[in-house]
């Protein structure tokens, strides 16, 4: 495999937000002492008045977001995904979703991105938590292009939204020449007839690599990138079940309430076929992100093995090798260290 360039999607997020804010002075950013980890330093320099850093107070942050929207502004409310969601969930439900407030919630560094900072900082429950809330679009971009496009979509649409902005480095996965993100639509990145790998966020590039591995085993796998988790693109999922007969989902989130559960429901109600749902289901042990992804089988190899398993094929010879790269806490390296939300 060639070494691909990988990107922290927060950079695309931050750059796009600055671009949009230049053209639209209704756009403001709100954060919880997370100017650094939400990558808002450039925004703060350019629009100091329009950055509202409330300090370490997530309930206040989301409520303030709702108030800003009420006053006619377009707030992007940014914080580490787990604190934003776990700490302010009732504000998200009542002040944002139920109030249909024009608030863009931006969950930064989700999933296992905080690596060795541990389960208190991991945000693996967020997709389950947010999908359960009505009228709240949940968007998970898979690469920089999708991230920028999703931020543009959020700015242009009136109403609540949650964007899950990845930190763990990912390569480009969006096919050039097509719109990188269409709200509510999943993207078929690779066609295939034997099984469908349905992935989101950081898992999309790994699903593509898994498909390459599977090709070597004679399995022709389709790869679908679901960047809108809620509402789900039912048609694409129905087509996957009907046309390929087996589905594997992969996400950096608890699957039984996240993407996995969303896909499972559609499959069961339309065309029941065997599935495997990949994602962390326990609190993580200590370790950097790449290690934890391996630990939970969230690698190209892990996805490929689950696919062979769901097809009843032998996984012998398929190593445990993943796409490990990036992650936090390179021992002894020194440097800026790891912010913590």
């Amino acid at each position, binding site marked *: 495999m060639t070494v691909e360039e990988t990107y922290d999607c927060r950079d695309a997020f931050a750059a796009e937000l600055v671009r949009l804010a230049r053209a639209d002075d209704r756009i*403001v950013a709100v954060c919880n002492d997370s100017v650094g980890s939400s990558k808002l330093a450039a925004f703060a320099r350019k629009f100091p*008045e*329009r950055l*509202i850093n*409330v*300090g370490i*107070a997530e*309930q*206040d*942050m*989301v*409520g*303030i*977001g*709702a*108030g*800003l*929207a*009420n*006053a*006619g*502004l377009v*707030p992007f409310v940014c914080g580490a995904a787990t604190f934003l969601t776990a700490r302010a969930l*009732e*504000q998200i439900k*009542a*002040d944002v979703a*139920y*109030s*249909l*407030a024009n608030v863009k919630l931006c969950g930064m560094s989700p999933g296992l991105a905080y690596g060795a900072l541990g389960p208190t900082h991991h945000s693996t429950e967020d997709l389950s938590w947010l999908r359960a809330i009505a009228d709240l679009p949940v968007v998970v971009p898979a690469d920089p292009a999708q991230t920028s496009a999703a931020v543009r979509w959020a700015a242009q649409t009136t109403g609540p939204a949650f964007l899950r902005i990845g930190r763990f480095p990912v390569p480009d996965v969006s096919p050039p020449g097509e719109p990188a993100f269409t709200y509510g639509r999943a993207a078929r990145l690779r066609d295939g007839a034997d099984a469908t790998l349905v992935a989101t966020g950081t898992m999309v590039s790994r699903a593509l690599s898994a498909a390459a591995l599977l090709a070597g085993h004679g399995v022709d796998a389709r790869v679908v990138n679901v960047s809108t988790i809620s509402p789900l693109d039912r048609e694409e999922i129905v087509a996957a079940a009907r046309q390929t007969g087996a589905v594997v989902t992969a996400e950096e989130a608890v699957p039984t309430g996240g993407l996995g559960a969303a896909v499972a429901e559609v499959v069961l109600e339309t065309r029941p076929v065997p599935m495997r749902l990949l994602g962390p289901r326990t609190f993580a042990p200590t370790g950097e992100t790449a290690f934890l992804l391996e630990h939970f089988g969230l690698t190209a190899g892990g996805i490929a093995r689950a696919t062979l398993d769901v097809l009843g094929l032998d996984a012998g010879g398929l190593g445990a090798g993943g796409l490990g790269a990036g992650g936090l806490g390179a021992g002894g390296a020194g440097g800026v260290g790891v912010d913590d939300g």
Partner: protein
Amino acid sequence: MTLAQAAGGLLLPDHDAIGAWRRLRDRLAHADRAARAAALAALAGGIRRTAISTIHAAGLGHTGGDLSVTDILTTLYGAVLRIDPARPDWPERDRLILSKGHCSVALYTTLTTCGFFPADRLATFAAPMSPLNGHPSRRAVPGVETSSGPLGHGLPVGVGVAVGLRLRGSPARTVVVLGDGELQEGSNWEAAMTAAHRGLSSLTAVIDRNGLQQGARTGDTNDLEPLADKWRAFGWEVAEVDGHDHLALLDAVTAPHAGSRPRCVIARTVKGRGVSFMEDRVEWHHKVPDAEQTRMALEELR
């Protein structure tokens, strides 16, 4: 579904009521203090009576807190807020956020006196498919700025509104009405700190200080005193007034600002105010009057 269809649907402005409310506002603006007090008292009496009837008819409501907050809402809508009930989303309007959302009936009733929607729609309160839910929903009720009901949500939202209006260069003000028990929620203190840090002098919090919460006295549950000291230590200007004295409320809310601090008005109230057998009785937090109690209450409120 007949009831549902009758109850559901959009709430539209009541132009007759709007006209009456505008005339009242004009009159009050030029009236002397005695006349102003009398007019607001009359308005509040009507709101109390309608609220009681509405709760009785629906079999649901928060009678005690509705009666304790009535004079606060009456004063604000009757003499303070710059709003246009015909255009509930007028960008330059003052914002009133009822954080103690369980007192929706007092709010809904007050909104009808301004003409946000017709008073006869109060009969659908809590009925199937009605826009008038047990707690105010921003989706359905014109004049409701944010959906409330879970306590401790209003002040952060109010802070956001005030920050936003200032950013937009609007002179409009933001008033948040809170319960006292509600102040046990830490979210309020987050917002209080932020409001002071940002010098939000356009923001006013009015505390309905009735000394009771759902199950007991606030002092017996988790004492809030010294309450004024708390707000001062959090950087707010504090005024304490009789929360049933319309003119005192009016003065406290409209007094000129000495600096850039947000203002907290601690309005000393009586839960169940105006109905002798409800006053200061914790069980009337959510007790619903039966026919006889309703009759007696309306009598006392005449």
